[in-house]
């Protein structure tokens, strides 16, 4: 019946999306059953997890209800580094069919593993992701997420194939070819990081190609925080609907949560990934609706169960039901990561705030970089912003006004005066994946 609905061209419902609409009581039953199983599996097979449970006099039987999850120890990124490469695996290598790794900015990467069953779950949650962004069989998807050790490319790839879309596995980079393929192949949807897509739009304009004249209608963006103001710019510049998706390698890759067509928060695929919001300082679980750090437990992962993983991403659970009818809960878009936080003279500043401020000033998609220095013991922030044809004038007075307007916009939002430096076009390095927005020279 569900397949019949899906195969009807008018149908907007993919059978894989059924769990998105589970009644609440049924969803909690599924979660509890899976939580008990995953805790037992990790306890039996992963030394680090068993030791920490025993230190707290806990056994798998300590989990009687979903609320008991709060008794379990947290996992953090360094746990994955400390057990590098295979120390957290709960399956023998003979059952592991895929490894990915995330490049740490310092030292060793972290390694994640998948059984075939894990890959099937991954394809399922990515199918649900694409379906909730309105994609169908017949869509032509240009997948500009990087293929390789990064989870983005292959994660999106199998999900889109399972959906029945036509996948173009173009990976990141080679922007001129991306634009040619987009036009010549009649691409209707594209996956990329928002910063790379911004660059792609800019490059298309240089080549006199207007994305608004192409069949492209949906952009699926993830892997880095981006602001609502950036979304508006992207949607207008490319004539698309831009959706935010969320995921992290430690949990599975992309496919942990996704926006739906309501574009009002990201639905967490919580039958597989159980979300909690905690106070990042005390570790206490906060009620739905309160802002804090997102903690995720993989409910069905076999090769590498991850229990109560502290994501460092700051958000809140939206308790109200969504207009799209999905019953799985939503989280607010991630505007900031506690890792990205810059502490400047005692004030917390996030790159996303700077981005939002710059976008309030007339112009175009800004390329910017934040440079932190220390001068006589005092932290200084310089924001470098590339000038665009729209803001450039031959008059010094006008350019000084642009500079002042940008600096004031930032000061209004973060409450600190920064040095604003206009720089030449293309002087800030273009990223093909995650953008590097902050350069910290305070330790130099």
């Amino acid at each position, binding site marked *: 019946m569900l397949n019949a609905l899906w195969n009807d061209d008018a149908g907007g419902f993919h059978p894989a999306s059924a769990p998105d609409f589970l009644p609440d009581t049924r969803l909690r039953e599924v979660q509890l059953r899976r939580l008990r199983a995953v805790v037992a599996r990790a306890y039996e097979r992963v030394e680090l997890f068993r030791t920490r449970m025993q230190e707290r006099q806990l056994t798998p039987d300590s989990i009687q209800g979903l609320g008991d999850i709060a008794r379990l120890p947290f996992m953090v990124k360094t746990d994955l580094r400390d057990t590098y490469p295979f120390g957290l695996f709960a399956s023998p290598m003979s059952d592991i069919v895929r490894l990915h790794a995330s490049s740490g900015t310092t030292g060793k990467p972290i390694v994640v593993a998948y059984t075939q069953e894990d890959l099937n779950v991954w394809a399922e949650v990515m199918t649900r992701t694409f379906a909730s962004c309105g994609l169908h069989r017949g869509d032509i998807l240009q997948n500009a997420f990087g293929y390789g050790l990064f989870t983005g490319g292959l994660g999106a790839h199998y999900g889109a194939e399972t959906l029945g879309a036509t996948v173009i596995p173009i990976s990141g980079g080679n922007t001129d070819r991306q634009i040619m393929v987009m036009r010549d192949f009649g691409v209707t949807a594209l996956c990329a990081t928002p910063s790379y897509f911004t660059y792609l739009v800019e490059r298309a304009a240089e080549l006199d190609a207007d994305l608004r004249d192409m069949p492209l209608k949906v952009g699926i963006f993830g892997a880095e925080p981006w602001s609502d103001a950036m979304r508006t710019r992207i949607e207008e510049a490319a004539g698309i609907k831009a959706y935010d998706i969320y995921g992290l390698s430690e949990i599975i890759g992309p496919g942990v949560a996704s926006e739906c067509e309501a574009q009002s928060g990201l639905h967490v695929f919580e039958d597989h990934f159980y979300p909690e919001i905690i106070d990042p300082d005390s570790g206490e679980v906060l009620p739905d609706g309160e802002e804090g750090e997102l903690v995720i437990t993989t409910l069905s992962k076999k090769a590498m169960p991850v229990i109560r993983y502290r994501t460092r991403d700051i958000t809140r659970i939206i308790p109200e039901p969504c207009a799209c009818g999905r019953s799985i809960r939503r989280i607010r878009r991630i505007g900031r990561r506690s890792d990205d936080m810059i502490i400047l003279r005692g004030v917390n500043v996030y790159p996303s705030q700077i981005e939002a401020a710059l976008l309030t000033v007339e112009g175009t998609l800004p390329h910017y970089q934040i440079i932190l220095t220390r001068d006589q013991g005092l932290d200084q922030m310089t924001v470098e912003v590339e*000038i*665009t*044809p729209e803001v*450039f*004038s*031959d*008059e*010094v*007075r006008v*350019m*000084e006004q642009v*500079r002042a307007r940008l600096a004031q916009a930032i000061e209004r939002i973060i409450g600190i005066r920064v040095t604003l*430096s*206009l*720089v*030449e*076009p*293309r*002087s800030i390095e273009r990223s093909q994946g995650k953008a590097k927005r902050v350069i910290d020279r305070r330790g130099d």
Partner: protein
Amino acid sequence: MKLQQLSLFLENRPGRLDAPLEAIAAAGINILTLSLADTAQFGILRLIVRDWDKAKQVLENGGWVVNLTEVVAVDVEDKPGGLAAVLKVLDQAGVNIEYMYAFSSYRPGKAILIFRFEDPDHAVKVLLDQNIRALDSDELIHADA
């Protein structure tokens, strides 16, 4: 008669001026005159060249943001008070000058002034009323010949 002036944004760092000038030179385009406005943080290079649309193309292909502005060139007696006479005319008519620069002409005894006016059409008319004629690009190009 108005002229097209090209403006470029430059960061105020050593060596930033070389690259655009080299790009223009490599394309075989001669610069008739230029002016550089600078602040502590950035500079604006203004150029008048023989073949402005080609120069604009070359610079844009090189990644510079190029702004095209209409300016007005007039020649004055190259002697004390030559500039003052023109400024007086403009002042009396209430014409606002955004900025200006000057260079010596090919014709003995003449200097050329380049004006960026808020309203160039109005300025040209005011000057003409006092028999001060704006030069066209050919006259400037001959200055270079």
